[in-house]
């Protein structure tokens, strides 16, 4: 675990202790389970986003995709009667295809990631809304899918399965990002794509793969979100989720310039954000301030991190100066 991740972890613990001191109900198992469920949902999104950010890209269409895939999934299994073990992989594949298209536009046609995915943000939301004619997609009363519900919204010994899914995904993705050749290429491309190309790396394929991973994880998390809310109004569902995902990754040390960041950081970033949301509700802070608290803490965190590194560098230099005298 890097110094940066450790700092974040400490911040999370400190905030947790303070909140628990003010309102001990924070530590109730039910609250921890609720929060870790949301951590699971948003964490999967953040990991997907992290893979794109590491290449120096960005994926802004995440929120709209959560709406579109959610609508499609619920429509398929609730209205069209498709069996969920068919619908689920279908949606995941669709996520991969969307990622493929984004990656292709970015890597092959050399369009800017911000532009491609901004258009995605607009288009997918429009499509989702058009698909339901601005109505809501949801389950009819009494429509139940016990095994699917257990897998997505259920708990295992009190631990939400979505959280377990996050842990598994994070572990796998940690190996991919930090131990595999693919991961190493991602870092290289993020730092200097041109030079990576000169090293004989198929940069296009790697970049496309990053977007595919993001698409797949987004689709997966869209299904989790759908099964959590069980109802999706496509006009608002998932709005700003891309910002949550990006904020989590950035809090976790990812640089939007690419080539920097650790997977543990992205997960911890999500934990902090969800802890903050929980805190606002638990401490009775006006919900209008929810956003402000989140923004304030991110800014503070990033500033402290920045100042802390600067301070450490200075101290190191001063140390060296003292020793050599």
């Amino acid at each position, binding site marked *: 675990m890097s110094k940066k991740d450790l700092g974040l972890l400490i911040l999370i613990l400190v905030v947790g202790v303070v909140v628990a001191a003010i309102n001990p109900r924070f530590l109730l198992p039910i609250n921890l389970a609720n929060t870790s469920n949301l951590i699971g949902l948003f964490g999967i999104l953040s990991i997907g986003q992290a893979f794109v950010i590491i290449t120096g890209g960005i994926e802004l269409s995440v929120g709209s995709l959560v709406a579109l895939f959610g609508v499609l999934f619920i429509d398929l299994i609730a209205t069209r009667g498709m069996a969920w073990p068919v619908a689920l992989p279908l949606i995941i594949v669709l996520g991969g295809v969307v990622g493929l298209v984004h990656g292709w536009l970015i890597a092959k046609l050399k369009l800017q990631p911000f532009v491609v995915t901004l258009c995605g943000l607009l288009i997918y939301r429009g499509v989702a809304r058009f698909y339901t004619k601005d109505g809501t997609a949801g389950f009819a009363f009494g429509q139940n899918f016990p095994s699917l519900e257990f897998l997505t919204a259920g708990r295992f010994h009190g631990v939400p399965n979505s959280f377990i899914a996050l842990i598994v995904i994070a572990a796998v993705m940690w*190996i991919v990002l930090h*131990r*595999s*050749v*693919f991961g*190493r*290429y991602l*870092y*290289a491309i*993020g*730092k*200097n794509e*041109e*030079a*990576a*190309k*000169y*090293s*004989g*790396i*198929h940069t296009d394929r790697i970049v496309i793969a990053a977007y595919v991973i993001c698409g797949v994880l987004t689709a997966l998390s869209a299904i989790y979100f759908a099964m959590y809310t069980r109802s999706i109004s496509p006009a608002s569902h998932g709005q700003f989720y891309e910002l949550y995902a990006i904020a989590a990754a950035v809090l976790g040390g990812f640089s939007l310039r690419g*080539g*920097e960041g650790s997977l543990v950081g992205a997960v911890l970033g999500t934990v902090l954000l969800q802890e903050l949301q929980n805190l606002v509700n638990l401490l009775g802070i006006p919900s209008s301030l929810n956003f402000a608290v989140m923004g304030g803490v991110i800014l503070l965190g990033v500033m402290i991190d920045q100042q802390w590194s600067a301070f450490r560098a200075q101290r190191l*230099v*001063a140390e*060296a*100066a*003292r*020793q*050599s*005298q």
Partner: protein
Amino acid sequence: MLKASDPSGLTARPHFLALDGIRKTYPGVIALADFSMRVAPGEVIGLVGENGAGKSTLMKILGGITAPDQGAITVDGVPHDRLTVGSSMRAGIAFVHQELNLFDNLDVAANVFLGREPLRGGPLRLVDRAALRAACEPYLKQVGANFSADAPVASLSLAQQQMVEIAKALSMQARLVILDEPTSSLPVAETDRLLSVIAALKAQGISVIFISHRLHEIERAADRVLAMRDGALVGALDRDEIGHDAMVKLMIGRALKAREALAPAREPGAVALSARGVSTPAYPGCRVDLDLCKGEILGLAGLVGSGRTELARVLFGIDRRLGGSVALDGKPLALSAANDAVANGIFLVPEDRKATGILLDLPIAQNISLPDLPRHARRYLVSPRSEAETAEAQKKNLAIKAPSVATLTGTLSGGNQQKVVLAKWLAMKPKVMILDEPTRGIDIGAKAEIYALMRGLADAGVAVLMISSDMEEVIGVSDRIAVMHEGSISGYLDRDDFSQENVLLLAIGKPAGKESAGAAVPVA
């Protein structure tokens, strides 16, 4: 120009690489015109030519980075229309680029083996980190690196980074190694090591194409020299014909005047820039005292990482000094940012021109006017005419080879880019000129011009500080030499004490011997 012995090698001889009729044009420029060459196994080819002659373009074609408009490439008997980076590597060609291409978020070993990592974990394709490290060490040893395989590249100096690049090329087990100005920021000792590495490659039957503007290196390493001018082969020299003057003649089409004897040491003027107890972030514990006089060229020599660049950055206000004071003409300077220095007439030509020297995406004229825009402006509005006039004058003055001053600087050859960096400061009124490796990548003709320019500046009363790792240059151009060792000045040499040995002794922290003055000492 072809001689009976056919030094250009075009007649049948077993060869590893054959190029025939290679042609490459850019808008307004013919970079390569029907270029042909052969490279035999185990042969070291020295490729020389003025800046912009097309050397790098040719190598980029071999490396698969650019495609030729025309021509045939045959590698090891296999013909290619064009090479891609992948096919070039697979064909056994390794390439050290003129511009560095390292990843400073990865460590040295990861950089050296990027794209060729030893794997474990079967289909998981995990990096075998221990094997990677182990595989890297021998190559680092071979290039004489003083850093370890897991050092982050971000912590290395430019010269050290160049060593990583060379280690990378060596590690590819290639059959042809292309070195495009690998020594441009390497000091003497490391350069020597590189030359012996080249000899070792040759002994293993590996071919080398070696590009350098330091002709004495070519002299020592090459079996055959090819000279280029304006994208065409203008001549070739066999091993026994290789000599400084012969190469120069081929390159620039005429003999260069013999290096002018040093002007008699002049009385230096008053102290212009004086640093007292200055310590830099790289060597926070060391204090540097330095006096730079008007009208002198003070050469600053030292080994890799001795802290010269750091000192220059502090004197230019890019880095905050940790202690001490700097005064110009006796007046103390704050130097909290580069604009402080520029406003006071202290200019820096940085060593890394791609990152800090110029804006590659701007036209030449805008690069030249950038530091002095207010002078080219009326009521805050830029006058493109005044700007173009100044740029034209500088283009002529420095013989910058470019279609026009509106050309994007990034499309110029390395040497011409360097001239643009110089031009922007020469267009202003320097009081103190700091040049960090000013002739890095500059051809021999242009070098002479730059030396003349520096001398001209000095004669006009400018104080010139020249950081250089090129021993010949330091000794040949300076009025006085200061040598740095691990962050502090280990000594000064006056004209009478100039010698390679003395510079080297000071550079490794030993006192210089007065007696040996003038003696030609073989470099260690």
